[in-house]
């Protein structure tokens, strides 16, 4: 049977809900293994003193992107049935900027704050509390925010569609950028050790 199994009948609604904690368990496990439950380590990314975040993040994207692309090419996964997050240019640009500043100040992002809290870090728990409070603030101001929130919608599109290139070319582009990034990071770390 072709994947995604939740869409093609291989996984019923109970199975779908059961898949969530199992996949989440692997997610939390690998975040903690990589040291991403430790706020000063994550914040080091912004000061070029610890580039773990860059390495983990782009390796994860490459793995999932190439896996999904080739499973689709070999007819094992129908990528058109996998939910593609919709694009809204302005709110996502503004949201990304607010989020980036919050990430710098908190030293953790929402997923890693859960890992930090689960491993006993009280600062992780505080970030989780702040997240909940921030969403309450957003919801309370929603009437006022809504025009901006719903503005500049482009629907579910890939950046490759927007650039007028094939999905395969988009995959190749991200792969090339990530590999160059890994090479540069490696060179930077070696130069810092020798200096």
């Amino acid at each position: 049977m072709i994947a995604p199994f939740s869409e093609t009948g291989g996984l019923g609604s109970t199975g779908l809900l059961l898949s969530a904690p199992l996949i989440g368990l692997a997610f939390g496990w690998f975040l903690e293994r990589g040291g991403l439950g430790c706020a000063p380590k994550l914040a080091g990314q912004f000061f070029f003193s610890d580039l773990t975040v860059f390495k983990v993040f782009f390796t994860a994207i490459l793995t999932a992107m190439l896996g999904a692309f080739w499973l689709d090419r070999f007819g094992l996964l129908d990528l058109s049935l996998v939910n593609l997050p919709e694009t809204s240019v302005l709110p996502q640009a503004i949201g990304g900027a607010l989020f980036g500043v919050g990430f710098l100040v908190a030293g953790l992002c929402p997923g890693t704050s859960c890992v930090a809290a689960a491993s006993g870090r009280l600062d992780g728990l505080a970030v989780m509390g702040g997240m909940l409070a921030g969403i309450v603030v957003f919801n309370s101001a929603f009437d006022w925010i809504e025009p901006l929130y719903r503005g500049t919608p482009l629907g579910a599109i890939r950046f490759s569609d927007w650039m007028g290139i094939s999905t395969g070319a988009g995959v190749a582009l991200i792969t090339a950028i990530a590999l160059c990034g890994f090479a540069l990071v490696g060179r930077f770390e070696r130069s810092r050790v020798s200096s």
Partner: protein
Amino acid sequence: MNRSPDRYADPYFAGIGLGLALLAAYVFAGRGLGASGGFASVVASGTAVVKGTAAAASSPATGPYLDHGIMSPLHDWLVLELIGVMVGGFLSAWLSGRLRIAIERGPRVSDRQRIAFALAGGVLMGIGAKFARGCTSGQGLTGGALLSAGSWIFIMTCFAAGYTMAPLARRLWR
């Protein structure tokens, strides 16, 4: 348990593990990973408790999260996934000797300041993630690996803002 903690895994190895977890989400559930959406579901349920289910369900901000009323988080894929994230993080920390109650902070801030900044950063991320329809998990990893245009806009503005403001936040971490 008193022992020195194990070394962290190689970042590239941890990244491959995370990528395979994300790929498993695409293959089994037809969707990706997320975190902020689970928080939003919990907030919507809390709003339903405080303001009543009818008021919360009719609000455009919380209504979409309340298909199962106040019990919605227990039917929400992301909330169940986040419970798994916490269990996975706990198990990994425990088995590697890193489980301990502590506040992790930069060398020049007090514990109290660290908690205040953690709360403030969390508030900013909560608002930002609502605007962006996701966070580093739901947009960054999930949408990024699917080439979503908006996800890459999010990734670029997120890191651009972080690096631009980093010199001002130096005292927090260095």
